[in-house]
Structure formats: structure tokens, C-alpha cells
């Protein structure tokens, strides 16, 4: 995010200004705590034994660090009736997310390019209609989608989820690329057209190489959305083909046996870690994706 060039303005100094500044940092620090405490609780609880959880406070550091809960969450926790941990479901999520992200990003780039740089009659209307698909409440397509997946023989399967995420991700990826391409000067394309390059020649030769930032933003956005999805996962898959978010919810809400909070927390961390890592590594691009939600980007 851009920094200001007004930071040099001479401001009043003195005890009042110092106190105000102190207050400012106190409030900022307080909110840091607010956002960080749940993360801390999650990590600390996952490293405690069940006895310590029952005995101590949820805010305390673990007295004795144990990774038992992690191990159990990974390969022994019960998801419904099956007790193999989250591992198979993490792979489901990976198998679902990678192709869905790749396909929707490529198609979105092509779409955004065709809609902004080759303005044919009706392009604006087509874009508006596609864009609306990004904002519909997905409840309205759950029932027909379930039937369609059944007819395609994809019901309850990972390929079925790939299809769903690709189709409904397209609206967003098209939006991202359209916003990016609108900022790209038409002059470059005109020059390429004069040089005899065609639709695909310009796309692969000129447009795609220069849209790396847009690709990164889109991939991160799509990855986060699809990995974190719950609605499609719970509506269109059963048991073995569940993505990790659905499995996590099942672990937490399994009502049989002793409630193992440390395992719940470890499972939550496992489910949240991939997107969290992406955020930490590529935070700036993540923020750009978020603000692209405001359509104009």
C-alpha cells in the first residue's frame, strides 16, 4: 500500500502530542492482541495435553509441549465414522484446489483480455452478466447443481468440485483480469496488430507476460476461496471425497467420545495453514485481491 508524502509536515510537539501518540500506540497494540489471541489460543491449546486443558486456563502457555494432538489430527482423528485423521481430506483439497485454480485463472485471463482489448458489440453486457454470477448467493444454484453433477456422473467426487469451483470462480477471475487489462495501454496492442499479430499471438506474446501481477493476485484469491470453501464441499461431497474444511467441521462436531479440544485446534491449524502461509508470503497480493472485490479495483 502506498505511503504518504505528507509525513514530513511539522506538527505541534509537547507533552500533549506525546501523550496522544502514546494513546495511539496503545489502541493499535490492543487491537493487535484482539486479532492475535485466537491464533495464540489455537496454537497453545493444540500443544497441550487434555489434562492440562481441563486443569488450566485457555490463555496460559502449555506447561509441557506435546505434539500428540497434531499427530492424532493428522492421521487418527475420527471424521464421522472413519478415524484416519485429516490427511486424506487435505489431499482431497489439494487435488480439488490446484486444477480449479489453474483452469479458472487461465480462462479468466482469456476472457478478460477478449472483453477489454477486443471490444466487440455486446462485450459490456456480456461482462455485466458474467460479473453478476460472482455475487449471487450460491444457495440459488445448489439444487440444480447437485442434479447436474449427478447426471454427469460427478456427484460426490473431487472432479465434480473442480467443475463447480471453476465455473463459479470464472466470474471473479474475469473481473480481476478485466480490471488489470483496462489499465494496459491500447497502444501496445495496436502496435502489435499493425505488426500483424493476431488474437492469440498478442495474448501469448504480449499480454500474458505482462500480466504476471494480475495472475499472482488471481491465483492467490482463487486459492484462498477454493481452499476455504465449505458450502460446495458439504453440499456436493460425501465421506471420502470431503475437502478438508468439511472434514474439520466433522472432527469438531463428532459427538461420540471425549471432546478433544487439543485435537480440534490442531486440526483447525492444519486446515488453515496453507492459506495462512500464502497470506504471510504474498500478503500484498492478497490485499489487492480483497480490494478488487470493490469491482473497480
Amino acid at each position: 500500500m502506498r505511503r504518504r508524502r505528507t509525513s514530513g509536515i511539522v506538527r505541534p510537539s509537547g507533552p500533549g502530542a506525546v501523550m496522544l501518540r502514546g494513546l495511539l500506540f496503545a489502541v493499535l497494540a490492543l487491537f493487535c492482541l484482539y486479532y492475535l489471541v485466537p491464533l495464540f489460543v489455537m496454537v497453545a491449546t493444540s500443544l497441550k495435553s487434555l489434562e492440562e486443558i481441563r486443569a488450566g486456563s485457555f490463555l496460559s502457555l502449555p506447561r509441557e509441549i506435546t505434539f500428540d494432538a497434531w499427530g492424532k489430527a493428522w492421521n487418527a482423528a475420527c471424521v464421522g465414522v472413519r478415524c484416519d485423521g485429516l490427511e486424506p481430506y487435505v489431499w482431497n483439497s489439494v487435488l480439488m484446489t490446484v486444477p480449479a485454480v489453474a483452469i479458472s485463472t487461465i480462462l479468466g485471463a482469456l476472457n478478460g483480455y477478449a472483453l477489454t482489448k477486443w471490444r466487440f458489440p455486446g462485450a459490456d453486457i456480456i461482462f455485466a452478466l458474467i460479473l453478476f454470477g460472482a455475487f449471487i448467493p450460491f444457495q440459488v444454484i445448489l439444487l440444480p447443481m447437485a442434479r447436474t453433477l449427478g447426471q454427469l456422473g460427478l456427484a460426490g467426487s473431487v472432479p465434480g468440485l473442480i467443475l463447480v469451483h471453476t465455473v463459479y470462480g470464472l466470474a471473479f477471475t474475469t473481473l480481476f483480469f478485466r480490471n488489470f487489462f483496462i489499465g494496459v495501454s491500447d497502444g501496445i496492442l495496436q502496435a502489435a496488430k499493425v505488426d500483424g499479430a493476431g488474437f492469440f499471438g498478442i495474448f501469448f506474446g504480449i499480454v500474458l507476460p505482462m500480466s504476471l501481477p494480475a495472475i499472482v493476485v488471481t491465483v492467490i484469491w482463487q486459492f484462498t476461496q477454493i481452499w476455504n470453501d465449505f458450502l460446495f464441499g458439504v453440499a456436493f461431497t460425501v465421506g471420502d471425497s470431503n475437502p478438508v474444511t468439511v472434514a474439520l467441521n466433522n472432527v469438531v462436531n463428532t459427538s461420540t467420545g471425549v471432546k478433544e479440544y487439543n485435537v480440534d485446534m490442531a486440526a483447525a491449524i492444519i486446515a488453515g495453514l496453507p492459506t495462512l502461509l500464502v497470506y504471510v508470503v504474498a500478503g500484498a497480493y492478497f490485499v489487492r485481491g480483497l480490494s478488487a472485490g470493490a469491482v473497480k479495483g
Partner: protein
Amino acid sequence: MAAGIRLESVRKFFGANEVIKGIDLEIEPGEFVVLVGPSGCGKSTLLNLIAGLETLSSGHVFIGGQKVDTTPPRDRDIAMVFQSYALYPTKTVRQNITFGMETRRIPKAHQDAAVEEFTHLLQIDRFLQRKPGQLSGGQRQRVAMGRALVRNPAVFLFDEPLSNLDAKLRIEMRTEIKKLHQRLGKTAVYVTHDQIEAMTLATRIAVMDNGHIRQVADPATIYENPVDLFVAGFMGSPPMNMIRGRLVRDGGLFFAPLGDRDGVRFPIAAAEAARIGAPDGQEVVLGLRPETIFAAGTELPGPDRFVFERPVAVVEPTGPDTMIVFEIGGQDLIARVRPEDAHPPGTPFRFEVDMGKAKLFDAGTGLRI
């Protein structure tokens, strides 16, 4: 009451990058000083330091005799006009103009009087209830001026206020700013990269380059007696001709252009020659303003004239004058002649040069000899 401004060894760093490299400048009350220089020379930063919009790294700024190093902008008794005009888009023209008085709790009656006086003067009294977005560029510029004027400050600061206007409006507003200054007599510091604006407006010009002030003087001195090649080259359009060559002592003092095979030697004017002690053969740069080279015999004869012949390379009519480009020793020179004296390209042309106005610079340091 106009106030003077004094800068004492002012320095400004952005990180490790020094953008103002120790500037001393004294501005008298009522002066109109123009800071001029190429982009990135530090002129806007220097203005911001005077305004308190940037914090000094070291040195001192005095306004009206008061040291203001740590004084916030609002307490410096200044007003400023910005390049983008910086009008508040959600406020009406009237609210824009009175905002600075509101924050200072100036009585309403006084505000109204000031608004009436200056909006009338600037011919924006018809737009008082409009928002800036509904005004043209020129009208916005006037509102920005009005906002500065109503506060009746001791010092006016201008940061390239005309650079967003089209050429015609720019000239109009230039005249208007000059009129306002003459009428109000307030101290003004004006930043621009346009040397014509600097020449027309300033009582004194400070030419800046790379964080330094190269020369501070009245416009005529800056133009006629630049201290170095930078100032000489920056002021004037078309720029001063700069010919590289050597000094030749051969019965008198002559200038021989480098790479010239025809053996043209410019005689240095007697008064100048007497002053110069440089040895025979020293490399120098001869500076000739285009208007000091004209068609031979077209002006009244005077001392220190020198006539030479060269073929015309390019002819560039500008209307009142015609520029003739020709070559000496592989270097392009421009002469400013009357349109009726011009010849077509390729034909020989007899030029006359007023060597009394020629300047000599040291080729190594660029300083005036």
C-alpha cells in the same frame, strides 16, 4: 505586513539521499523570489521546508525574524497555492475559501468581507455555492488563489501553480499574479520549472540544480551575467549557444572553435580580454545568445562586432524572428535573424556577432571566467 524569510544552511535528507545540500538565502519583505530549476533539483522540497510541510534535517528557517524550525504550518503566517490546486472536493467554493479562517476562529463578519473582496477581485464571486468539480481548470486555479489571499498572510508560497493550465490561460494568470503582487506588496516565493515564468514574475530568481542554488540575482543579471554554464543554459529560449574551443593569444585574445577547419577566430572584446589572464591554448566554452548573432549589416554598427560566413543548415521561422541553424566545427549554432533576412538552406550566409555580449566559461569547471 510583509515578512522576510531567511534560510541558514538548510539541509534535507530523504533517507540517505540528500536533496537539499546546505542552502543559505535571504529574502527581503515584499520580494517576489522565484525558485527555478529542472525537475528533481529540490525546488519544491525547499518550498515545503519554508512552509513547514517538510521537516528540516538541519539548518534554520526564519520567517519575519522568527525562527520557525519546529513551528507547524498553521502558525507560520503563510498561505500556499498548489500545483493540483488541492481544493476540498466536498466543500463549496465558499467553504474552501473560508476553511482556513474557520479553523482560526476569525469572526464571521470579517470572513464575509474578505470573501467578498477577493472573490470579486478574482472574478469567482459567481461560483461561491458550486463544488470544485463543477469548475473549469482556470476557475479552480482562481479559487485556490482566493483561498490563499483571504487569509492575508505575511508570505505567499506558490508551488508550480500554473503548470496545469493551458498556454493561453497560463499567460493570463501570470500577469494577474504579477498585478496582485504589485498591489498587495506581500513576500512571495514561487516555484516553477518554466524559465519564462521565472523571468517575467521575479524580482529575484534563484536558479537551483541538484540541491544547490547556483545563482541568485535579478532577472536581467541572471540572463546577462550567468555565473556558470548551467545557469546560462537553463535560462533563455532558444538556449545560449555554447561553443567549445581554445583561447588563442596572437596579438589580441581570440577564441578558436574546436574541430573547425576554416580557421574562424572570434576576437574577444577588449574590455573582457583585459580582464582575462588565462594562458594561451586553454580550453574554454564561448557562450553566445542567439539574438547576439544576426545577419551582417542589419543592425547599427557598434564596437566588438565580428563578421563570418557559414552555409545555412536549417531555417526555423517562429513568426517575429527566424532561427537559422548553422555549424561551426561540427557544433550546431542558432542565430536569431529578422524573417526577411533569412536564406534557404545550403546557401552561404554572412553572420554578424556582438562579441561585447559573449561570455567565456571554463571548460573544466563550467564557471564564468
